[in-house]
């Protein structure tokens, strides 16, 4: 039941960090600098290159698209079969995906429903 206790802080990615304690140490330094009223404390976080997930990445995590190991890679070809209608903003994309359910889970439920 632990999962229900997840504090739902939003998820960001540190793309080139390999070990978790590196982000923890960096954050400890940042918080320390902040509590010392260091106006420029945020620079300490810059090496982590923290970023949001892209809409295409979220589509994979919600299984609208397949992850890389299930898709044969064709060089110089866009692998995503998913196309957004024109004029959908980035913010709207995030909201739409975030409000949806995971396609794989629903697929398994539908298979069970019609078994």
């Amino acid at each position, binding site marked *: 039941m632990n999962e229900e206790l997840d504090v739902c802080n939003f998820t960001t990615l540190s793309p080139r960090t390999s070990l978790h304690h590196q982000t923890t140490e960096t954050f400890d330094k940042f918080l320390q600098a902040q509590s010392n009223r260091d106006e420029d404390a945020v620079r300490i976080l810059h090496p982590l290159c923290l970023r949001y997930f892209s809409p295409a990445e979220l589509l994979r995590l919600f299984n609208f698209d397949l992850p890389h190991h299930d898709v044969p890679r064709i060089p110089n070809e866009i692998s995503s079969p998913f196309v957004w209608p024109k004029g959908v903003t980035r913010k709207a994309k995030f*909201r739409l995906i975030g409000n949806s359910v995971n396609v794989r889970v629903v697929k398994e439920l539908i298979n069970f429903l019609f078994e």
Partner: protein
Amino acid sequence: MKSSTTRKLLLLTLRSLGYITSEFLLTPLQFGIPNSRLRYYLLAKMFPLVFPHMPNLNADVDEVWRHIPGPGQLNHDWVDPRLQQRDERGHGAASHSVDEIRFYLDEALDEDKTVSHLYAVPDRILQRWGRLFDIVLPSSRRTCCFTRGASPP
């Protein structure tokens, strides 16, 4: 959730209309996808159709399943690897059946280290909310939340 009066009313109403129901609490993690997103699902079929692999109809009708019953590898309750690791010293089979996040990333996005990233978290957000972030690495096997705050401003 089990004590929810809304759920009870919903189930009673469906049954009074002749539906057989089955309920689930499922997360993408149990299908190998590194996203922690436990959700309640309710399926209903009009009697005499019934659900396969379910104990008889008069059994505990309030049971909420933690897996989809039937043959196959997924035919067991999902156990949070964070609970399991304590017993198995971090080598629990369950934790490694979930993908690493790197398979879900756009590698090209992180190739150019010189340009400011299209999806970089802005400084003012880092300053204000940084301490509340759930930070994951390409080698992580879990992401948490992507709603509201997760969207770039």
